[in-house]
């Protein structure tokens, strides 16, 4: 079946992280609120109510489109997408059609450009619930009217893994720009996939669309499933139908939602309640100036600072980590690689193990910088630093900890010299062994360090022992 090559395109919905909804003053963030508690005449679609444009949502959508290298039109417009469903209180969705905020952008993935066909702004629908065995359904309109950005890609992706990587990248960009939390678990990033298979070099095959994908993992699984299914059909000389499918998370398989014939005619037309929006050069200039550094640029900058490539990527694609990293560097005298190692390694490890995040922990960039500096300057050993980490993450100052607990390494050769002399005198047998076999020096070294309470700097002790053994 490997004779077939998949062709994949994505439709990604990002919930824009604004204070208020797209066309009214209700809060946009309603995750976890009681049903229908964040609504008003506008988002309920009551008769006589009218939408007004949330400029902040527009700013975020434009910033995202610009970051993807999209061309932005001078005039953009909202259209109505007409369909009857109870989670759309007006029975139409205010969306964009032939004048979206951005077109013809791209995202770099593994040194290759994945084309972004368009980005447009629209309002979200409410949420329908169908209680099991109940003769009714329920609708929660808290989400109705929340601002969304929809991004459609070209059919440029070739493997399920690539699709997943692409989504990771979209999330990183959205978070770096502050346009969306892009968190699939809270429905802040939702993806539909279009997938077909073909023999390499052949024209595109018939594609199907798969919806209801709640996580990046589901995206990958659904793609894997569909690629197998379609390849089997084609291998048996059958033909794939252009259907819309759903993803059954429990059964890990796709199912038919509707056929092409069952597709609605949305009767798009310009929304007469919302005049076209003019986007002038000054607006774009302001947005460009306000655009934070993107993950790719960050990665390059970190590598330039001497951070290893894999660590640089790890930090750059996590907004929280990279922001913390940058703030730590500002106050640290140590090298970037050391800070990066601590942050990407032990700090992250401890936080994960303890169900914490940088935000919920009490770790400050200053404290992390001090901890790294103490090790770099030789004041404490790496081992001691690791032991201090939980307290530092708990909010303690590393310098205070070192002082109070008397953890400074003994680095004074004359002070150490007498300890070394005493140990050598007490252990003549070990001295003989060490003289015969340089590896046996370690046994003496351990005893010296032990008798200093762990504060002696091992390299110095080793030097002294070797010196005294002649």
């Amino acid at each position, binding site marked *: 079946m490997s004779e077939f090559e998949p062709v994949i395109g994505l439709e990604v919905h990002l919930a824009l992280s604004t204070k208020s909804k797209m066309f009214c003053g209700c809060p946009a963030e309603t995750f976890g609120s009681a049903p229908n508690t964040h609504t008003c*005449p506008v988002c*309920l*679609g*009551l*008769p*006589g*109510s*009218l*939408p*007004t*444009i949330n400029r902040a949502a527009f700013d975020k959508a434009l910033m995202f489109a610009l970051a993807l290298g999209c061309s932005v039109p001078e005039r953009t417009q909202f259209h*109505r997408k*007409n369909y*009857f*469903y*109870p989670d759309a*209180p*007006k*029975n*139409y969705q205010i969306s964009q059609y032939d004048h979206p905020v951005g077109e013809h952008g791209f995202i770099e993935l593994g040194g290759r450009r994945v084309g972004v066909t368009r980005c447009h702004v629209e309002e979200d629908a409410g949420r329908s619930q169908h209680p099991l065995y109940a*003769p*009714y*359904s329920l*609708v929660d309109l808290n989400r109705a009217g929340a601002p969304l950005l929809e991004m459609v890609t070209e059919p440029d992706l070739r493997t399920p893994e690539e699709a997943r990587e692409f989504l990771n990248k979209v999330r990183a960009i959205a978070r770096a720009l502050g346009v969306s939390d892009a968190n699939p678990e809270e429905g802040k990033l939702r993806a539909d996939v279009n997938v077909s298979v073909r023999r390499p070099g052949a024209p595109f095959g018939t594609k199907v669309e798969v919806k209801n994908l709640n996580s990046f993992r589901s995206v990958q699984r659904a793609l894997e499933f569909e690629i197998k299914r379609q390849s089997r059909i084609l291998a048996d000389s059958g033909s794939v139908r252009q259907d819309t499918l759903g993803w059954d998370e429990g059964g890990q398989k796709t199912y038919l939602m509707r056929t092409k014939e069952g597709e609605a*005619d949305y*009767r*798009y*037309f310009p929304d*007469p*309640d*919302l*005049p076209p929006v003019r986007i002038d050069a000054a607006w774009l200039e302001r947005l460009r100036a306000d655009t934070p550094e993107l993950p790719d640029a960050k990665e390059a900058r970190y590598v330039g600072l001497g951070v290893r490539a894999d660590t640089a990527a790890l930090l750059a694609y996590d907004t929280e980590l990279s922001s913390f990293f940058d703030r730590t560097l500002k106050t640290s005298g140590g090298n970037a690689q050391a800070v990066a190692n601590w942050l990407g390694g032990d700090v992250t490890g401890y936080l994960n193990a303890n169900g914490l995040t940088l935000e919920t922990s009490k770790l400050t960039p200053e404290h992390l910088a001090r901890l790294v500096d103490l090790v770099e300057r030789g004041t404490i050993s790496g081992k001691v630093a690791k032991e201090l980490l939980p307290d530092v993450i708990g909010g303690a100052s590393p310098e205070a900890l070192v002082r109070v607990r008397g953890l400074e390494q003994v680095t004074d050769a004359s002070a150490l010299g007498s300890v070394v002399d005493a140990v050598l005198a007490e252990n003549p047998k070990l001295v003989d062994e060490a003289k015969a076999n340089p590896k046996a020096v370690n046994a003496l070294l351990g005893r010296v360090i032990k008798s200093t309470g762990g504060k002696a700097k091992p390299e110095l002790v080793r030097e002294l022992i070797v010196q005294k053994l002649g």
Partner: protein
Amino acid sequence: MREALARAEAAEGLGAFITLVPEALEKARTLDVRRAAGETLGPLAGVPVAVKDNLCTAGVLTTAGSKSLTGFVPPYSATVVERLEAAGAIVIGKTNLDEFGMGSSNENSAFGPARNPHNPDFVPGGSSGGSAAAVAAGITPLALGTDTGGSVRQPASFTGVLGFKPTYGALSRYGVIAFASSLEQVGVLARSTRDLELALSVMFGHDPHDATSLASPPDLTGAHGDLTGVRVGKVRELCGDGNSEGVLGALARTEATLKALGATVGEVSLPHAPYGTAAYYLVAPAEASSNLARFDGMVYSYRSGEDRLGQAEVMRRSRGESFGPEVRRRILTGTYALSAGYYDAYYGKALKVRRLIAGDMARAFTSYDLLLTPTAPTAAYRLSEKGDPLAVYMGDVDTVLANLAGVPAVSVPAGTAEEGLPCGMQFMAPALQDARLLRVAGALEAAAGKSFAPVAADFL
């Protein structure tokens, strides 16, 4: 106030009101107390007004003349109603209309027809028929209507009062139950130019809740003065054969008066005017098909059938049972006009005609200050006289132009036509030049004296 309510009750046979607001009396008393206490009250303090029932009024049933909204009590008032009330006006009732404003005779109301106070066997026009009847019968000096294709001006013409449709965007549409959003404006019916101006001046002004509301409203400072040197262009395509004898007679009288008042009257062509009605009857239903989609029986509108039928069937039945035939006809027309494969041929073409008409007008306004046409080709007709919807549509030929072009227009009483029934003349001005219309209406009112907009008393 007591008198207005009493007159409204006495005139029940007119069918002008769907709902009366008895609390108006209490409000009037409160105002009297404040006045007695020496408080300065608003410019419309204590003035009773009638409000078309497709304008939301907080706490007062608002039906839009439809069975679909027989239970809808909005939690908010339309911005225009709020502003009238802030100026001291008191809403005494919600007036009858063609369902959702779709009609020109007020016969398409789920609450029965309204009648013409000058002769109850005749229609008052529509869709703001109830508002026109209330003003013509002297129940209130002012009424609000909405004008999507002539729905304020044509009933004003049929009942012998003033009907004003401002520049698109001059009055907020927030709280107007939408029929065709790109065409409609709130309008005012009155018996005097002074009342008209007062009402407009308190309601004008940007509304942040309406994205199509103008940033700054038309300037009304030029609303007074004589007509010396004012250039009036009679629209050739609309001032000929298509009109009744009586209407043509009224047009000739108006022309003579205008000249006597110092205006010059010439003839001007709007070559695309004859296509206006066709364009209107595509654009308006297209927008309506989407605007009315929300009346689906799910939350506040009429609901039919049982839950077990499922959401789609409950929606289908609720809509089928609650919309009248004209509303259903327009939703179907509009849905068709927007459908894939037909959009360009219908909706797209209609938008093109709309631009051409606006272009015609812009050209005409380079040579004329005002354009003149009859408000409608005939005076009022008898109830049930026009069975063919197309015949009714053709009666909108004069008024739809101003809506398509977004310019202001007024219908001014011009005496009587057939059967002693009133008829009006329409003036149109360039966008934002609403003051010119008040000026010509004021001059004609002064020239006509007491016979300008007489109260119809026969109905009692």
